[in-house]
């Protein structure tokens, strides 16, 4: 029943035919990327876990609307972006949230046994970046996360955000410049002081 080898399209068809168990394949396959997108948009691990659960359930409920025009991952990211945007707005994460210092974000980095000093510096850098992402507009944060973190092509970013590819390019440049400003040493000092 649990077939990892089948593609997303086949799993989606099975789910659409009523095989709910096939949806587990899709969840296992896309949970990491979906959760990271949500987590980087929210900056809160627990919130991200809750929203991720809602996103997959929402995707299952509306999977009959998925016509296969785009990749399932793109369609799923779109749902995740909408849910995370709503939650982000409600929590006012853009100005208040910071990355928790629980080391969760270092899992999977492959340098868990590295020098503690370097690890601390890296964690601090990640906090700064995450804080800067939280300060960005949700669309700018999403476009940076999708493009620079998840290495999504322009077309997929355009589909997730439902904007033209040219807009993605210009908005990506604008978002990078805004993030660069936020990560400048003087701004980091200001945020730390506040």
């Amino acid at each position, binding site marked *: 029943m649990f077939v990892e080898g089948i593609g997303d399209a086949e799993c989606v068809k099975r789910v659409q035919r009523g095989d709910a168990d096939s*949806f587990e394949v899709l969840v296992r396959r896309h949970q990491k990327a979906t*959760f*990271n997108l949500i987590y980087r948009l929210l900056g809160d691990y627990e919130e991200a876990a809750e929203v991720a659960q809602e996103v997959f359930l929402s995707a*299952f409920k509306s999977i009959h609307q998925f016509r296969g025009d785009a990749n399932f991952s793109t369609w799923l990211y779109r749902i995740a972006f909408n849910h995370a945007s709503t939650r982000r707005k409600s929590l006012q994460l853009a100005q208040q949230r910071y990355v928790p210092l629980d080391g969760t974000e270092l899992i999977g980095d492959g340098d868990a046994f590295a020098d503690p000093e370097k690890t601390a510096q890296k964690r601090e850098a*990640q906090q700064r*970046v995450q804080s800067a992402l939280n300060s960005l507009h949700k669309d700018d944060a999403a476009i940076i996360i999708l493009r620079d*973190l998840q290495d999504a092509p322009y077309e997929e970013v355009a589909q997730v955000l439902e904007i033209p590819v040219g807009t993605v390019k210009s908005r990506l440049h604008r978002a990078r410049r805004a993030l660069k400003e936020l990560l400048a040493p003087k701004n980091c000092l200001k945020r730390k002081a506040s």
Partner: protein
Amino acid sequence: MNCEATGLQLSEFLDRTLDDQYLGNLREHLAGCPRCSEELAGLAECRRLVANLGVVEPPVGLVTRVMADVREAAHRPGILERLFPSFRLKLPLQAAAVVLIGVLSVYLYQKEDTNNSPLTPVPPEPVLSVQQGSTKSETPKLPAAPINSPLPNEAKAVSTEPAPAKASSAPAAAASKVGIAKSRLESQAEKFKSAPIPAQGVTTAQEGSSFPGDLSGRGLGSSVEALRQPGVRPAPFPADRLSLLSEPIPDYELVVRRLPSQRADQATPAGSQDSLQKQAGGASTSGDGRRQAEGSSRGNNSPLEILWFSVPYDKYEQFKKELAAQAIVESEIPVAVKEKDTSFIADRRLSIKVTVLPPAER
């Protein structure tokens, strides 16, 4: 190429998606523009920092929780099922109930129709036989006994005869083709015959009697001198004075005993105008079915006769006197009338039940 024009191309240059036709010009500009080169370095650093955020592992058990929700949602009822929780169950039950009610309605309607079917013979109306002077009965075929009207001053007598049940029963038995209808007609006639006589179904004398008190007798058609009815009127028995068995409630109930000379076996039905027995014999010719039945069952030798009279209230005493002249009044019981009843008025007619006992044995 100026710095403004290179702005958007810097991001594409970082992503290695810039077209070759722009790539050469951009490289030439960056080589000669430290500002744009610094901008490119800053953007590259941001990109590197974001990329170094790494991949965060999702929480353990996320798949389990998601699939638990998914399986619950898969078995959750739809919108229609939520709006109509037991729609699937209720629909057949409601349909069955509607069908059952419809079948019962048709059955009851047809049953009612059968009872009121036009094929069922209508109960024959009682033939009203009116004798007024020389007027004969409208039912000459009836083997009715001759109306005993010995009094010359009895102008007219009204009698209501029951339906000719026996007359119709004979052809009904003979004619087999009309068996069902005839038998029904017969049963209806028999039913009518045995039914209690309504208040108007009595033989009465008529007004104009020499008796000044205007005594009215019911169920007789004959008279005693004392009870001779100068004008026998239909004695009305209001509905409220009829018992469940259609037994009228008299205002007075008198018990009289025949004088020794008035033996029933000595009386002749048509001749003796003075005997109470003759009254009873006359009653047998009347339309008063119940009293007629009583009289005929006992015959002329019946030791007990019951007579009914309708007398004006102010003539009651005179009625009693004349009755006492013909028989021995043994008791007088005011049944429905109470002494000093204020509701009584002078012109009200009294209903009087007279029980005639046989002469005392010597």
